[in-house]
């Protein structure tokens, strides 16, 4: 035998192992893919062999290939095979492979349920450990449901190694099977106080993960965590707890108050930076949550900021980074305490580490005030110049814009300065953020009326120098700016100094190289400028300038008419025709300026980005209704512009080209204005909103004259710097003035106004250079409140939002599938598709789910059957129970029985495989291992039979489905000695009523040989069949076990006497019963009643039921609130019905009173024990 193994391994050692594979791949650098494909072929061959070692080796190699990116899911079944090896070495390889490549879609996963269950209860802790580790990676909802109970049992395992793994994996189980959270939670809570620090840490870990997602459900644990925090010394645990508190405090400010002190102590005492950092973080969270109601904890803030400063000043980049990160959290609520560290943060902008620079930038965002904005931006502008790498520079650019534009330009006192900054930014090479700058320019020019003159001048310069921006086609990101420039110049052309020149700049041939949408804007705005020029020269007869302008347009526009871009083409040709027509009129000396200007009349107002979304649907508007019914007569509000036209010139308007005179135009404009006023979709300057936004009113604001004596461009100096200087001067001057003068009315007014918009900032000394009117974005009237819900409906954590403080209800039970109490539908009802009338809706929903489950199981059975034949032989060890090897002929017989049963099953639909697990331990042996048979739950029915110093025997008696006069006694023999036990013989003194089944030909007093030997410390199980005649009475049988104890020196004969106790319970078989059949049974009147009261029971009702189910082989028929009906059947067909009430009285009925009496006595006994 040993020789054979050695020979096998010699054969094997020339197989390629993992190391050889790796070496091979390294040696075939050129044709790696080809080499690997030959290796995969080899692996496929190896997987076909029977030798588990070869298979494990192959799977090991596959795991490596998986890492390299090869799909190995085709070998999933082989992985399952290797997982089920009895050797730890191979098992581990199998589980590793499974954890790397199994996922919810892997269909063989359902074959693993029993294997995993077996490994979980393996006596070897590493088998269990490896199974738990593997399961944590590929647990599915099905596995979670089926194994939740087993894992929960492991949470109280004797070995901390198992306990901690079991506790950790519960989180994954909760995620996949949220129903398990409530029943498992009490035990999880218990583990917070486990004596082993590892287990404790695991429990903290799991609860922190849970609480992070749904903190409010865990508030009640706060005292416990508080205790842990003050007592624990494990930094890892402390960090987790402190992080958890950070999540809890926003919900419970009182908790925060309590926390401050111990946290502060920790901050002072700990040497671990990680702990310090988390403490600071949580203190910040506490302070944020307190900031609303509480007086200030300035000492704590100071402490935090001080500690963070130490972190930021540390030479370790990691600490610096985290310090900045935490600082930004303080910034939100206590900006002032951070602002005092501006120096430090600005210093970080110079750091060589980009992440740190970015963090510092984030901080700057919150640190600006009216006072320091210019200064900070100046510094940033310097960085923009220095920055290498476009990403960082782009980041700077967006940050500058963010900082300046935040909260509606709150901190900008001088918009001229801002415009110059924007213009300076356009000189950035290769930025992607042209559109950002452009939108800022537009925003400012539109919303700040006072700045338009300046903006237009700047934009005109930009347009004039457009070649600088577009010189390099690579940098076309920036040419977006021209879009804004052209539009601003056009729209606010009345401010232009020299519109003619700008017009000329806009029509240069080079413009044609710009992107289409920009050209389109150019063309459109050229027309606006044209109108302005005409108006300027209005009144001058035979104005040379006006005609020159027309000519210029007529000369240049054809270039755009040829554009490939449709938008450009269309606009250009329209305008070209218009201009040609105007030119004709000009030549006739007709006054056209007014009319052309009218084309572009009207004010444009900014609109909030969400405005469109927020327009409420008007009452009575049905968007699904026909638009054309009733036809044309009605004035749908959507079609206002059309309707105007139709009203004025009924029917003929389109066919007639009337020359409209000025009056007519004016009238139309008036009508249109009115229409617009009543049209909710037209965005206009509504008088009401104007009132709100423009409270100060432009006219009343004293506008400080722009000192244009300062040249806009100072050679060698960025012009925005000028403003900085000017600003400083201005501020000083103002200060001086204020000292001299008494406050005048205007000033008072201004002061008030300033207070209103600058909030509590103490910046009284700064008055804006331009009192600007920042037009707020418009929203439609009666806009709908925001309905944005950011929560992801697919978040798996949503399901875990479960109230854990409620006492466990009956429904909160982990599925111990053997005894799962459920209401069964009779087949008849199934057909009708009706649900049991008493059931609530909720229950029927559950039922449906279960049906689905069953469907799935049927499907999975099919797959299993297919695979069954191939693996039955190899996977014998998968079976939960040790195989009874003694009776070969019996096996055959049982196979037959199995077939019969299969047929029965078909008749009885598909419910039953869940039920005979408990009584049919024997079946599972032959059922071929991978069947989803029920093993005994770890709490066991086995009771002690006899024990001496060598051997211990425990036994359990179960009825046999198939034979009404037979019961099976399973005896587990455990060798307690250091010697070998062999030649065990089992004998029982038969009584008249009960007899041990002996093989044919054996005498009535012959003993049975136990079909195995026991090495030291090993246990094994054997079964003995007894025939019984009457089952109404319990019975005791005397018996003897003889065996030989063989140690090194000697061997001795030993004998052990025992008494087998056949209880009446052992004749009962768990049998499912339909509620309607049950009702009929009770109605029939054949049953005789009896009742029992249990005293002093204080366990939850569902525990009580579970115990009755488990120990006395009952099944729950139905449970309604406070009572449950239960059913069982004896092997001889007696019906036993129980009605159990929460008052722990049991009413029982049975067709055999003495059997019933005995069963009730036994139940009573069971509960008196506990």
């Amino acid at each position, binding site marked *: 035998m040993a020789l054979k193994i*050695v020979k096998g391994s010699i054969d094997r050692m020339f197989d390629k192992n993992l190391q050889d594979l790796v*070496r091979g791949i390294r040696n075939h650098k050129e044709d790696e893919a080809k080499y690997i494909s030959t290796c995969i072929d080899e692996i496929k061959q190896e997987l076909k062999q029977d030798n588990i070692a070869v298979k494990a080796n192959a799977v090991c190699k596959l795991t490596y290939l*998986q*890492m390299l990116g090869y799909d190995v899911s085709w070998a999933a079944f082989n992985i399952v095979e290797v997982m089920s090896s009895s050797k730890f*070495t191979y098992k*581990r*390889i199998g589980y590793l492979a499974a954890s790397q490549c199994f996922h919810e879609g892997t269909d063989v996963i359902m074959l693993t349920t029993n294997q995993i269950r077996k490994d979980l209860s393996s006596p070897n802790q590493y088998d269990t450990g490896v199974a738990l580790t593997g399961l944590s990676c590929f647990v599915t909802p099905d596995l979670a449901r089926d194994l939740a109970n087993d894992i929960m049992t492991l949470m109280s395992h004797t070995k901390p190694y198992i306990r901690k793994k079991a506790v950790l994996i519960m989180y994954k189980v909760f995620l996949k099977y949220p129903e398990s959270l409530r029943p498992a939670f009490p035990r999880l809570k218990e583990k917070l106080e486990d004596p082993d620090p590892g287990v404790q840490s695991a429990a903290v870990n799991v609860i922190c*993960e849970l609480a992070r997602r749904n903190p409010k459900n865990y508030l009640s644990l706060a005292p416990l965590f508080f205790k842990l925090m003050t007592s624990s010394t494990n930094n890892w645990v402390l960090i987790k707890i402190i992080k958890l508190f950070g999540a809890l405090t926003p919900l419970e400010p009182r908790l925060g108050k309590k926390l401050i002190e111990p946290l502060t102590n920790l901050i002072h005492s700990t040497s671990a930076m990680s702990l310090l950092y988390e403490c600071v973080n949580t203190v910040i969270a506490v302070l944020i949550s307190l900031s609303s109601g509480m007086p200030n904890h300035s000492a704590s803030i100071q402490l935090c900021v001080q500690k963070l400063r130490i972190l930021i000043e540390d030479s370790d980049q990691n600490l610096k980074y985290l310090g900045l990160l935490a600082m930004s959290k303080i910034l939100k609520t206590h900006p002032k305490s951070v602002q005092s560290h501006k120096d430090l943060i600005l210093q970080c902008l110079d750091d060589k580490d980009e*992440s740190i620079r970015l963090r510092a930038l984030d901080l700057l965002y919150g640190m600006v005030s009216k006072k320091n904005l210019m200064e900070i931006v100046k510094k940033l502008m310097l960085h923009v110049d220095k920055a290498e790498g476009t990403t960082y520079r782009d980041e700077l650019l967006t940050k500058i814009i963010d900082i300046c534009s935040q909260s509606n330009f709150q901190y900008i006192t001088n918009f001229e300065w801002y415009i110059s900054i924007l213009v300076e930014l356009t000189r950035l090479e290769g930025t992607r953020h042209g559109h950002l700058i452009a939108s800022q320019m537009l925003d400012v020019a539109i919303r700040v009326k006072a700045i338009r003159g300046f903006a237009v001048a700047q934009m005109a310069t930009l347009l004039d120098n457009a070649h600088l921006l577009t010189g390099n086609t690579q940098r076309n990101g920036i040419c977006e700016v021209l879009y804004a420039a052209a539009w601003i110049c056009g729209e606010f052309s009345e401010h232009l100094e020299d519109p003619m020149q700008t017009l000329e700049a806009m029509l240069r041939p080079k413009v044609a190289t710009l992107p289409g949408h920009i050209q389109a804007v150019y063309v459109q705005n050229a027309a606006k400028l044209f109108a302005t020029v005409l108006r300027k020269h209005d009144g001058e007869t035979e104005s040379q300038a006006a005609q020159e302008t027309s000519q210029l347009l007529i000369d240049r526009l054809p270039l755009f008419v040829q554009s490939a871009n449709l938008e450009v083409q269309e606009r250009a040709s329209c305008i070209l025709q218009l201009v040609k027509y105007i030119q004709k009129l000009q030549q006739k000396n007709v006054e056209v300026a007014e009319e052309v200007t009218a084309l572009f009349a009207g004010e444009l107002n900014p609109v909030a980005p969400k405005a469109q979304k927020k327009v409420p649907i008007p009452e009575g508007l049905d968007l699904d209704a026909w638009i054309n019914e009733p036809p044309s007569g009605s004035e749908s509000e959507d079609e206002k512009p059309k309707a105007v036209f139709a009203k004025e010139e009924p029917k003929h308007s389109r066919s007639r080209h009337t020359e409209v005179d000025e009056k007519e135009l004016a009238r139309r404009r008036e009508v249109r204005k009115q229409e617009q006023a009543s049209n909710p979709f037209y965005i206009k300057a509504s008088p009401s909103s104007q009132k709100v936004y423009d409270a100060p009113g432009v006219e009343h604001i004293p506008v400080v004259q722009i000192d244009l004596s300062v040249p806009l461009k100072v050679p060698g100096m960025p012009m925005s710097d000028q403003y900085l200087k000017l600003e400083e001067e201005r501020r000083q001057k103002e200060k001086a003035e204020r000292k001299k003068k008494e406050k005048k009315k205007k000033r008072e007014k201004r002061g008030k106004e300033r207070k209103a918009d600058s909030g509590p900032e103490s910046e009284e000394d700064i008055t804006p250079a331009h009192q600007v009117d920042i037009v707020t974005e418009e929203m439609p009237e009666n806009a709908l409140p925001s309905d944005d819900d950011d929560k992801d409906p697919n978040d798996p954590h949503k399901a875990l939002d479960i109230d854990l403080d409620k006492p466990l209800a009956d429904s909160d039970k982990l599925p111990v599938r053997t005894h799962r109490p459920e209401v069964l539908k009779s087949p008849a009802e199934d057909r009708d598709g009706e649900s049991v009338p008493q059931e609530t809706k909720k229950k029927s929903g559950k039922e449906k789910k279960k049906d689905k489950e069953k469907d799935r199981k049927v499907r999975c059975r099919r797959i299993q059957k297919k695979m069954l034949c191939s693996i039955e032989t190899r996977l014998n060890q998968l079976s939960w129970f040790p195989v009874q090897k003694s009776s070969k002929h019996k096996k055959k017989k049982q196979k037959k029985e199995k077939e019969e049963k299969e047929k029965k099953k078909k008749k009885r639909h598909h419910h039953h495989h869940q039920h005979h697990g408990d009584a049919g331990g024997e079946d599972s042996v032959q059922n071929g291992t991978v069947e989803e048979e029920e093993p005994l739950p770890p709490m066991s029915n086995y009771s002690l039979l006899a024990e001496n110093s060598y051997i211990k025997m425990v036994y359990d008696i179960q009825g046999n489905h198939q034979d009404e006069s037979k019961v099976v006694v399973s005896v587990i023999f455990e060798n307690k000695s250091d010697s070998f036990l062999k030649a065990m013989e089992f004998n029982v003194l038969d009584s008249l009523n009960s007899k041990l089944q002996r093989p044919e030909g054996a005498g009535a007093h012959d003993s049975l040989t136990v079909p195995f030997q026991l090495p030291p410390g090993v246990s094994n199980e054997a079964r003995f069949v007894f025939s019984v005649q009457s089952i109404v009475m319990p019975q005791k049988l005397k018996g003897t076990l003889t065996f030989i104890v063989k140690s090194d020196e000697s061997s001795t004969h030993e004998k052990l006497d025992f008494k087998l106790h056949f209880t009446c319970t052992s004749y009962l078989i768990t049998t499912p019963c339909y509620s309607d059949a049950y009702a009929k049974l009770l109605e029939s009147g054949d049953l005789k009643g009896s009742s029992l009261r249990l005293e002093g029971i204080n366990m939850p009702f569902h525990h009580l039921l579970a115990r009755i189910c488990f120990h006395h082989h009952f099944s729950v028929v139905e449970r309604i609130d406070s009572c449950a009906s239960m059913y069982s059947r004896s092997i001889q067909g007696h019906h036993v019905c129980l009605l159990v009430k929460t008052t722990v009285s049991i009413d029982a009925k049975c067709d055999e009173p003495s059997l019933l009496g005995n069963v009730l006595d036994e139940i009573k006994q069971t509960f008196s024990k506990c």
Partner: protein
Amino acid sequence: MIKAILIFNNHGKPRMSKFYEHYTEDTEQQIIRETFHLVSKRDENICNFLEGGLLIGGSDNKLIYRHYATLYFVFCVDSSESELGILDLIQVFVETLDKCFENVCELDLIFHVDKVHNILAEMVMGGMVLETNMSEIITQVEAQGKMEKSEAGIAGAPARAVSAVKNMNLPEMPKNINIGDISIKVPNLPSFK
């Protein structure tokens, strides 16, 4: 939660990858490539945190990494993990490897990736930190190693001999993961011991 643990070398070759969420093999490779790209272009003495791996998880996630000689150890974690704690954990991991392999170098990881997985399994389970105490980890790893040896028993001997012979002509590789000379600054490592 830890979302993924990746080890790759200076050239981006994966030496071990462990994903605690399911991705297809292609996505996994992409993630490794992307992570390598992000991490490798960073200088030596800048901070070890990176925000925004695009493929794994979203904005909540961070990459926390350490670079030892030829290898990068990258942990992708979400906001429930303490950054410095994870850095320490990486250190514990590497030191454990160093103990288990006796002066670990890239070659050990190349040829014994299964062993690395087994060691990791004693530290992190299903994305959650299981054990941070190095001696406890080593005890468990060694106990399992012993079990493996006892199972191989007499039959394992010839195979071991052959593999020893095979290993003799390994190409010379610098044995330089030696964490001793890298002098990693772990601000609070003693706290775990």
